[in-house]
């Protein structure tokens, strides 16, 4: 990863990671009846700059080093923390994305937020700007070294969409006979699928099948369209062209059969492997063609989730 990639990666992580992944779980708390004069020792010994105030199981306030300094500066008499604490505590839920924490830290100007479990309403941790940075750096290191390890996050985007069924549709135009630009659609699709967090092994199969199909459209036809429909279970690539069509589909599918012109062979293609390779990559493949009107290829590849069900 170069510098720019790392920065984009951090931006991604801020949305991906949850507060609970970076928060400190061992929270030093104080009681509302603890005296202000004792606070300094508590903060010093634990090397913290503030603490949630807890009564029984309930979070009743928060007290910071700043409150302590104010109290000192005013030369007030000793009193319970309960009298000086902030009662209106801003909290975060453990399952909120990190970006919410970052925004709140920035907007409200507080140094820390107690973290609450959404179900039980219990105090489960504390988060500070320092912990956010630490957590991000740690994750970045892990991601960096484990980049090859297959991650499966395809369901991520779908998690945030509220619908009984969700599908994404991408469309690409393929210009015929333009060898230079051949592969742009497959490339765009591949990049997009990776960004969606789909398993790299699945992405690779989709990319290869799409590229082979795109190549055929470029080489044998005046042009066509590629569309790709994605849902959590499968990825369907649909390629249509208005070319001459294939007289004998069965024959065309056989490895080694090719009508590729010489210029295509010189460039390293035209061995008659493409359609066969598409079939190898696909879980399902349907190729239909009408001589004179064009060819229609449909390729379906199941995601891990689709395979499971």
């Amino acid at each position, binding site marked *: 990863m170069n510098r720019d990639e790392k920065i984009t990666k951090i931006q991604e992580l801020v949305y991906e990671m949850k507060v609970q992944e970076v928060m400190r779980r061992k929270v030093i708390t104080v009681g509302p009846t603890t005296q202000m004069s004792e606070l300094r020792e508590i903060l010093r010994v634990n090397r913290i700059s503030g603490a949630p105030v807890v009564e029984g199981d309930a979070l009743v306030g928060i007290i910071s080093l700043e409150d302590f300094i104010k109290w000192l500066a005013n030369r007030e008499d000793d009193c319970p923390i309960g009298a000086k604490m902030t009662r209106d505590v801003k909290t975060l839920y453990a399952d909120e994305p990190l970006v919410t924490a970052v925004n709140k830290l920035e907007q409200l100007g507080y140094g820390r937020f107690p973290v609450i479990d959404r179900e039980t309403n219990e105090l489960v941790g504390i988060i500070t700007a320092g912990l956010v940075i630490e957590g991000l750096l740690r994750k970045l290191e892990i991601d960096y070294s484990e980049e090859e390890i297959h991650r499966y996050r395809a369901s991520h985007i779908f998690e945030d969409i509220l619908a009984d069924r969700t599908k994404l549709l991408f469309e690409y135009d393929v210009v015929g006979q333009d060898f*230079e630009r051949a592969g742009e659609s*497959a490339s765009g699709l*591949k990049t997009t699928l990776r960004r969606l967090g789909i398993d790299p092994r699945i992405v*690779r199969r989709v*990319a290869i099948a799409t590229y082979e199909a795109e190549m055929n459209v470029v080489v044998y036809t005046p042009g066509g369209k590629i569309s790709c429909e994605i849902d959590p279970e499968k990825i369907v690539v649909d390629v249509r062209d208005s070319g001459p069509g294939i007289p004998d589909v069965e024959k065309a599918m056989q490895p080694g059969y090719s009508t590729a012109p010489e210029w295509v062979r010189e*460039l390293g*293609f035209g*061995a008659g492997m493409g359609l066969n*390779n598409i079939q*190898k990559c696909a879980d399902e493949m349907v190729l239909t063609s009408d001589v004179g009107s064009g060819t229609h290829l449909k390729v379906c590849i199941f995601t891990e989730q689709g395979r499971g069900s």
Partner: protein
Amino acid sequence: MKSMTLEDVRRVLEAEVIVGKDLLHRRVKMGCGSDLMSDVLAFIKPASLLLTGLTNQQTVRTAEMQDIVAICFVRGKKPTDETVKLAQLKNIPLLATRFRMFEACGRLYTEGLPGDYEATESG
């Protein structure tokens, strides 16, 4: 099973690095030599180094689709400007060696870089 870094590849093939001078720490698990992209698309395994005498943009496209680690052009061939540009965009290292295909592959194999058969048999 042995693997090599691109820096090892560069050394063994006395190669020039055209794209990806900062990516030489990347590892290749196996090598594949071919002038037929149809074949490469059908058979190459991920984490491979591709050795080829073809220099058009579709070599980079093929590498991109197949998750190929790097391309090394053999017999002194230099990639076209468009090929270089695409490789930069896609972060795919390009190397160039004066050795011909047979000798380039032989040198790497001797240094311990397997082909896909051996690499996947033991891995």
